[in-house]
């Protein structure tokens, strides 16, 4: 059990470190922009927008909050991201980390 605990802490530290590097270098912004671009290109943005409109219509504009909308569309939004977009982003992050460690 201790091992798992230790591992979890290490993972968290690692994640924090990676994130720090990404922010520091501006790579995070570049990745964000790349992701945004890809999602627009593959129609994800339009699809999700359409879905949001439906949810708002269904619940009524007066009653809906952002929290409602977020919890409603998040699962769908995640599921709709194409695999190759995920792969490309992952690969970009790997490349970035490889460059950083050199």
């Amino acid at each position: 059990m201790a091992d798992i605990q230790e591992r979890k802490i290490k993972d968290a530290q690692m994640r924090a470190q990676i994130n720090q590097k990404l922010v520091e270098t501006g790579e995070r912004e570049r990745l964000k922009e790349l992701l945004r671009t890809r999602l627009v290109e593959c129609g994800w943005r339009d699809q999700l927008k359409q879905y949001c409109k439906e949810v708002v219509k269904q619940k009524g504009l007066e009653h809906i909050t952002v929290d409602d909308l977020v919890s409603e569309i998040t699962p769908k939004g995640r599921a709709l991201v194409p695999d190759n977009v995920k792969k490309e982003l992952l690969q970009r992050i790997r490349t970035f980390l490889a460059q950083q460690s050199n």
Partner: protein
Amino acid sequence: MSCNGCQHLDELKKQHGTEPYKIIYSHFIVCKSADARRRKANQCICYVCRLYTPRLHACMSCVYIGCYGRGHIHEHAYKKEHYLAIDVCYGVVHCFACQDYVYDKELEEIARASTPKLALGVGIKMTFLEWEPNDQEIDLLRRNAKRRRVEERSTIGLRGLINLGNTCFMNCIVQALIHTPVLRDYFLADKHNCNIHMNLNNNNQCLVCELSQIFQEFYSGIQAPHIPYRLLHLVWTSARHLAGYEQQDAHEFLIAALDLLHQHCQATNGNVESGRPHHCNCIIDQIFTGGLQSDVTCKQCNNVSTTIDPIWDVSLDLGPASPATNGSHSSSLCSGYSNSPGNYDPTSLIDCLKRFTKPEHLGSSAKIKCSCCHSYQESTKQLTMKKLPIVACFHLKRFEHSTGYHKKIATYVSFPEELDMTPFMSSSRNNNNGYSLQVVQEAARSLSCENKYSLFAVVNHSGTIECGHYTCYVRQHKDQWFKCDDHLITKAMPQEVLNSEGYLLFYHKQILEYS
């Protein structure tokens, strides 16, 4: 959801103005300098989790940072009665008293003004901005209430062209241009603002205007074939060598048409230059111009001299290589570049491109003075793509005009629906000659769609060199193909397109860079 702020935000603005928003925005949301980014990397974490967690918000009263997902920013807001916090990813303001995000014109303006600076700071050329109609456009939309929705099965944009007497060479190119996605978007967005009209006192002298008109015709919804007599007249008066009722070469027409379009675009911008494609900003150059790199390596001192030329198309040799008498054959056309080492018959487009980019030994009869060792030496020459165009036109040189005989090479050359140009790029050449090939980078490149192209039009020639006919396959939507045979449009299967002989192949980049 409120579009006009909320009372809590109004109060805060009354007390402190927009200053708190500006400060937080410039420190945590857009970081222009490396220093600011370092600060953000260190400080921008949830104060409870001590981690960078999703949906971090910064308190507008005391810059306490907490995450939204686990409710840490909520805790802070209610305990301290600091109800307003900014989302550090997007810069929107959340009011915990109203329990919703609030929108404020003034703050949005501040955010909008600083986004481009952020992009510049980290080397993003241009960020995506959604189209927002301006007043004039809103007015236009209101006055023209009829909308046409392009459905998956819609055939809008397909229209036959009447043959005006051996003008199939022109019709097939017009079909290919009309179905070039970026060109279509340009014209349907009404981007061509011509001033040739006024200059020349004549309202049908500009080929760009004529093409724009043809786009209107194709998308008007009329089914009857279009009669391109005005275009033909314009071609006859502007490109004399194509005038008359004789059969012409479709490739020659394509180059002449691109050149004229380019000139007329430039005339609109004030300066006219003709001939070679240039790195000007006209739509033709933006879409069709690529950069061809030529590296000549001196055999004596290994010095490499590099030149980069703009090109509109790539002419590829077919058939067995001719004996290396004069090395590379530059095609007579200014735009065409060709190269023919190797002793095999290429049977696919990839073969042709490999041959095109293969290092070629320039024999003893073609010695070049080396700029480094200042002597006439034998050398090797290699062509690679330095810059890829948005639309790549490949011209399979099926018509052989050697001294004494003319013949058509009807060899079958297969071509793919999806083409990756990465191996033919100058950067690949450098890597092969260089040392470390990072596995990670290799994998990234093959995954990325950066250099990938999709086939969208194929011009075919049937018959012999003296007498023949041109037809064109064009792609609609993502995968529907149609055969354009002058006035006749028929549905075609993708396999039929890929099995066709192929004379001019048009590929479109799958991903466009926003620059």
